[in-house]
């Protein structure tokens, strides 16, 4: 039974760690499926986390914080969109630039406004997302196994976590079952054909980039309003890149994204829990290896040793209507 308890706890922290990854990877899914590569997920998340922490503290309202996060993230997305869609600049360069500007600006502005070394003041309960207790969570806990799964694993997460998991089928539905999604995917594969059909490639790509901004905003808000009580300097700590890795690992498909993020989240949760723990047969696994594993797995996948990850055909290529 103790083993089961450990399993529940690990699963619980896996869900917590995976939430921002799922949101950010889905964000990347929208732009990359439309042919705009985005390595600025990290920066957008960080900017959103800062905006959420700052505004939620000032207004004492968690919804204002969430809105501010989405707003900032969408604005940053539009900068990326302007550079890579309108100006036809290099999409990678633009993403790198956004990551740097945000990394610096959040610290400078945070220090100037709150004078706490780049963090925002700790939020009270009103300023953060609480947890949602699913109905009957307490009374069902005593039911063996299923009861615990229900009340400790499924219940008791922040609303944003439920939103993130709901966004997976929702994204699938948008991308595969709506006209907008069909066109969005088409514009990432063959923008010329979409243009010939009389649909604006530019406007479609901008909408995709805005979708990315919204989801990244929620991911950032999760970090500072749900997982923590406020913003801390550099709090994304590479999560945007892990999400990018998960997106590729998932071969740009919504369902796979869920599993890739849960896998990477699990590795993270496992590494934190079993730091310095000696396993039977294997002995101590260096924590650094666990940290590097998501990246190593992604490289192996990219190398084509576990199936082949084929990116959208028009990804990274600016669309030129005519010469």
């Amino acid at each position, binding site marked *: 039974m103790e083993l089961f308890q450990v399993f529940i706890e690990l699963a619980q922290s896996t869900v917590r760690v995976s939430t921002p990854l799922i949101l950010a990877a889905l964000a990347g899914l929208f732009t990359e499926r439309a042919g705009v590569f985005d390595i600025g997920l990290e920066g957008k998340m960080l900017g959103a986390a800062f905006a959420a922490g700052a505004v939620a503290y000032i207004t004492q309202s968690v919804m204002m914080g969430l809105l501010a996060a989405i707003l900032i993230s969408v604005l940053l997305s539009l900068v990326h969109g302007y550079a890579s869609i309108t100006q036809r600049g290099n999409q990678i360069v633009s993403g790198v630039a956004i990551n740097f500007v945000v990394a610096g600006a959040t610290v*400078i*502005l945070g220090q*100037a406004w709150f004078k706490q070394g780049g963090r925002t003041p700790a939020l009270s309960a009103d300023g953060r997302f609480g947890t949602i207790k699913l109905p009957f969570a307490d009374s069902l806990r005593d039911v063996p196994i299923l009861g615990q799964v229900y009340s400790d694993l499924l219940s008791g997460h922040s609303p944003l976590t439920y939103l993130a998991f709901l966004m997976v089928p929702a994204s699938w539905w948008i991308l595969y079952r709506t006209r907008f999604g069909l066109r969005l995917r088409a514009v990432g594969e063959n923008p010329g054909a979409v243009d010939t059909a009389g649909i604006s490639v530019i406007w479609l790509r901008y909408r995709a980039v805005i979708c990315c901004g919204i989801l990244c905003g929620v991911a950032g808000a999760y970090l500072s309003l749900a997982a923590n009580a406020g913003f801390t300097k550099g709090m994304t700590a590479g999560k945007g890149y892990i999400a990018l*890795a998960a997106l590729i690992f998932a071969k740009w498909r919504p369902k796979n994204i869920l599993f890739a993020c849960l896998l990477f989240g699990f590795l993270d949760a496992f590494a934190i829990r079993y730091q310095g723990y000696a396993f039977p047969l294997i002995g101590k696994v260096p924590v650094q290896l666990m940290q590097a594993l998501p990246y190593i797995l992604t490289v192996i996948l*990219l190398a084509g040793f576990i199936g082949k990850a084929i990116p959208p055909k028009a990804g990274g290529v600016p669309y030129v209507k005519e010469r």
Partner: protein
Amino acid sequence: MSVPYAKLPAWAEYGLIPLVNLVVAFLISGLVVLIVGESPLEAAYHMINGAFGRGEYIGFTLYYTTTFIFTGLSVAVAFHCGLFNIGTEGQAYIGGIGVALACLAFDRTLPWYLVFPIAIVGASFFGALWALIPGWLQAKRGSHIVITTIMFNFIAASLMNYLLNKVFKPLGSMSLETRTFDAGGQLPKLDWLMSIFGLSVGSAPFNISFLLALLVSFGVWVLIWRTKLGYEMRTMGHSPAAARYAGIKEAKIIIITMMLSGALAGMMALNPIMGEQFRMQLDFVQGAGFVGIAVALMGRSHPAGIIPAALLFGMLYQGGAEISFEMPSISRDMIVIIQGLVILFAGALEHMFRPAITRIVLGLSPKTSDVAATKGA
């Protein structure tokens, strides 16, 4: 992608456009300073004074410049072949292993001028090795170099953390670093060079690897513009299809280019490890690899542009430290913003001001404007 704009005279192409991009980046940074509630002019004064006000400051500025020349060249060499090497950061970090091994092995037996060449070879070897895998994956398996090099940066960080913890750290020491090198592992400062200009280097770690950086810059120029390999690299960068048609071995060129880029990145490690700290510390690269991206974009991937661009960022780093000392509300993170803005305007938005500049410049000389008009620019 062909450039749908009229051709500009060289002074505008390589001077005016980068300058305009830079000015815009600085104006926006100035705006951030204003938002923070400080005076941008005062900040600019502290920056320039902090970077050039005294011999010692200049020494620090040139110390940073050295680092950025290496990383800038690393990114630039890959650019020429159409490859975006974001992994310079990780390659420089791994390059440190070569420097550390050379110093730890020979610092007590050999003089610095013998250890230095060994360290150069070691740094380039390990840097090239770390770039070889993404290069090979791109060439042979078609894995996107940008993604693999990002992943390799993180893997490098974990690997170095492990190595410093388990291999390099002396017994009983708490901090994650190697032991301090003896005289053989310490590069001499360039105080004689400074004293020619009547300046004193003071405590600045301005060392002989600066001269190596200049030498390597020249080497890169020769390589790219005066050798067959460089020609093949540039052809690949311009048009992979043309390169294939001309019988250039694509995979070979990609792998060689990435290894050269990695070797240049690795050499960066000489400066902080042998020139300043005399030991290898955790995270000694400190983002210099990413600065290299800005430097290469700013310097238009040409050594003659990279050296001044590296100097600019050296000034920002040293001057930025001085600003944060004088104006506590502006920490060194300000440099990161400026760096990001330079990458944005000199890189991603490089064409934003081009139509306007083209109109103005070509408007000045009526003959060329006719050509532009017929081209429909």
